[in-house]
């Protein structure tokens, strides 16, 4: 076992006094620290309970990303995000082998998880190029709001003395688990955006000689020299080895960055345009976006990565027409994977849904494509005149979605609802040749969208709006009300039988006349 605990302080909280960190023989205590915290635990597969080990031995890799649906800040280098919920990325050791991942997930996260088998519940992850890909091949997702079951499971697995510590996982904002067969290990990565419970971190971190190294760092962001880099400074201490914290400063290239600071903060919020109907529109609004939405460098393109439950889908054919796309302030559909059947009702869908990557238009680049230069020119002309008036207007992007038919419901006044998580929004930019992102000690990959870009892509993450209550939107869905549908069966049958009888009677009347006429002919 190996542990690394990192406290990340905001620049104005960066002064760390000696009383705030005290190193003893086999322990280290923290007082009055305010900031984010990451706790990283590396475990060999043989340190895990047998039931996990058996399954993990069948996996080439298993990567779990969980994010809370409540808003939290992502302080650099922890700026990368996934949509709230439980994301599982998996590559089997042998092609086509299931390894009973769903059973494992059920046991660890809760049996209510709608996961049957890899074949019936996971989707194939689209990747840019199989050869160079470092991303997993199957993906599962669930809007799983709580880690309660997970924490209980881990509590049972650890020594009694550790259980109190484990309970702090209930307040975690992000949790990553990375297991792979090559390193023969699992890495658990928990992230708290701010101190739990009380206002400050107050912790006693202990270790035993037998339980492996434990490194603690208290770091602050520095201004990096290179645009690809992040720079951190602060103190580091290895518990049980160092007798006092050592000052440190280091820089590394990073895949994930915050959007560059400017006068107007860049952020977005998501809402469903009302009335939603059966074709809800997911709108992403960037407040004052016409001013604040500036690409970090000219190579950047604005993207939204959507994780859509099976109840919702996008129509890739609808998102092909440049005129339609620009009217929604979209540029193109980059990729869509998973359940894309345009007609199937929700009960005919077994897999969790679909993952969609869209490129969005942004104010400094007109949404229209070059070939309709005429309209773009006209728009630009009109834009110049009203530029002053619309100095910092909001920028809203619309993503047209479609609802599947949902199961009829009893006593629900004919309404059902589906929850859709907020997407992840970022600028994707090209990095310098030869940038080695893997050197980053805080690197984070397998987020669902990074595999769709080249390995030397940088992501500048646009954070969700601070006033957001939860990063999940609820869409009302009209369904058949079973309470009022009792007469439908009988009524339809009666109508059809009456209609049929009426037509047959009319036909018999015709036949009757024919008979009369035939007799008349004979009579002649």
């Amino acid at each position, binding site marked *: 076992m190996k542990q690394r605990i990192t406290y990340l302080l905001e620049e104005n909280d960066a002064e760390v006094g000696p009383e705030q960190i005290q190193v003893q023989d086999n322990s280290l205590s923290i007082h009055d620290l305010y900031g984010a915290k990451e706790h990283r635990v590396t475990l060999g597969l043989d340190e895990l309970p047998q039931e996990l080990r058996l399954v993990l031995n069948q996996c080439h890799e298993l990567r779990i990303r969980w994010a809370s649906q409540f808003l939290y800040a992502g302080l650099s280098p922890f700026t990368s995000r996934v949509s709230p919920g439980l994301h599982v990325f998996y590559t089997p050791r042998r092609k086509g082998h299931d390894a009973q991942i769903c059973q494992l997930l059920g046991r660890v996260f809760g049996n209510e998880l709608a996961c049957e088998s890899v074949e019936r519940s996971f989707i194939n992850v689209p990747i840019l190029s199989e050869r160079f890909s470092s991303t997993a091949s199957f993906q599962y997702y669930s809007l799983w709001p709580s880690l309660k079951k997970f924490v209980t499971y881990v509590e049972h697995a650890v020594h009694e003395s550790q259980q109190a510590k484990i309970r702090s996982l209930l307040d975690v904002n992000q949790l990553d688990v990375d297991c792979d067969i090559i390193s023969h290990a699992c890495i658990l990565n928990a992230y708290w955006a701010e101190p739990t419970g009380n206002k400050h971190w107050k912790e006693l971190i202990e270790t035993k000689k037998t339980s492996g190294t434990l490194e603690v760092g208290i770091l602050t962001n520095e201004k990096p020299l290179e645009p690809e880099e992040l720079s951190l400074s602060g103190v580091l201490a290895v518990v049980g080895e160092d007798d006092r914290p050592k000052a440190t400063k280091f820089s590394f290239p990073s895949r994930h960055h915050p959007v560059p600071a400017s006068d107007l903060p860049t952020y977005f919020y998501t809402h469903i345009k009302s*009335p*939603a*109907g*059966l*074709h809800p529109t997911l709108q992403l609004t960037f407040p004052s976006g016409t001013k604040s939405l500036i690409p970090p460098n000219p190579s950047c393109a604005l993207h939204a990565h959507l994780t859509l439950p099976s109840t919702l889908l996008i129509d890739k*054919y609808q998102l092909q*027409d440049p*005129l*339609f796309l*620009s*009217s*929604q302030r979209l540029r193109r559909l980059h990729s869509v994977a998973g359940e*894309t*059947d*345009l*007609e199937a*009702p929700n*009960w005919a869908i077994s897999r969790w849904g679909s993952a969609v990557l869209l490129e969005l238009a942004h104010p400094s680049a007109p949404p229209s494509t070059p070939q309709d230069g005429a*309209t773009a020119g006209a728009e630009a002309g009109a834009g110049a005149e009203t530029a002053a008036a619309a100095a910092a207007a909001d920028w809203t992007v619309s993503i047209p979605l479609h609802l599947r*038919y949902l*199961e*009829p419901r009893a006593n629900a*006044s*004919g*309404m059902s609802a589906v929850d859709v998580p907020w997407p992840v929004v970022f600028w994707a930019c090209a990095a310098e040749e030869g940038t080695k992102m893997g050197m980053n000690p805080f690197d984070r990959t397998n987020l669902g969208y990074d595999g769709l870009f080249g390995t030397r892509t940088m992501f500048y993450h646009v954070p969700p709006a601070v006033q957001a209550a939860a990063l999940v939107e609820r869409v*009302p*869905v*009209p*369904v*058949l*009300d*079973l309470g*009022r*549908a009792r007469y*439908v*069966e009988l*009524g*339809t*049958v009666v*109508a*059809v*039988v*009456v*209609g*049929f009888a*009426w*037509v*047959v009677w*009319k*036909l018999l*009347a*015709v*036949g009757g*006349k*024919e008979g009369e006429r035939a007799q008349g002919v004979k009579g002649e």
Partner: protein
Amino acid sequence: MDRFWSNSRLVFGSAVLLRVALLGFGILQDNYSPVKYTDIDYFVFTDAARYVATGRSPYMRDTYRYTPLLAWMLYPTAWGGIWFLFGKLLFAFGDIIAGGFVYRILRDGADMPPARALKFTSIWILNPMVAQISTRGSSEGLLGMIIMALLWSVLQKRIVLAGCLLGFAVHLKIYPFIYAASIIWWLNESASAQTSGKHTRSPSTGLLVSLLKFCNRSRILLALSSAITFFSLNVVMYALYGRPFLEHTYFYHLTRTDHRHNFSPYNILLYLQASPETQSNVHLERLAFLPQLSLALVVIPLALARRDLPSTMLAQTFAFVTFNKVCTSQYFLWYMMFLPFYLSSSSLLRNPQVGIVALVVWVLGQAVWIQQAYQLEFLGQSTFVPGLWLSSIAFFLVDIWLLGIIIADVGQQSTRVEYDKSRAKKMS
């Protein structure tokens, strides 16, 4: 005005102009508005044509549920640019040719004066709904051409041609198989007196004799030519595209139970039955084909076909669409193309009050349904029950009432004589 109606070139010229204008309007709208004039299905067809043009299967396009032949017919649209219009031109051309056949049948078959025939033909060719559907890129116009050519060749007794067209039409859209029944029943060429009741020795030989009598030359020719056309097209398509061809062209349409709201009276019942939560043991919807096919395929042809073949085909199509498990407004075109033949001698025109009421309730029935569907689809109100269900049942009953009128009208007629007369006249 009289001069207009007496000049077939003027009438057909205006039909062409109407379509050209709509095509032009469509180009403008498609190029300058995010809301497209072109029908979604046309994008499906042209995407499939692009697959076919690059040697791939048209079924790589989701929701392409037609014969690959259609994609092949639209091959030029794969060249891009202005060629995108090729299919729309083909469909619009098809519906004008269909109008041409309607006119010929009214003139030669029903012996109608030119001006009157043109007026009735205009119900189809100058109908803005028809012109719009074709120019938006729906294939119904092409189907119309084949069906009208089929009717024309049957009435002209060009049996082999008729059989080929029938086989092709079924390959294209399945439902025209119902016409086989009325055409076969209509083709009792020599009901001459020489074989009257005298030969009957026992009931079984009597049955055999009437069966032999029934299998006359025309009927055998029609059956053979249509079967050969249908099956050879299928064999070729199967050889080229394998199981997906059968899957999408036929099985999909036979097994589909469309749960999304549409005009069918069965719609809400299907939604109710399809969902796993309401698994009931009685699957009434599986019996839906019984009233539909017994009327369209058996009773209507038997009762009416020998009186007036075109109007019988109208009644068959009307019954088929009305009792179908899925029904969209595009299906209304299937029976509208037969209206010129029927209306010319119908009580709806003889008694305009009934005619106007019929038109109004038919339109109103749809309007009420559409209003409910709009509230559901765009405002998100749960109008499945009672609104949508009641309006679809009401529209069904309106259709039943209209079907009753059509049947009674055809029953009044002895049009058979008219068509025979004209043919006799020509032959002599």
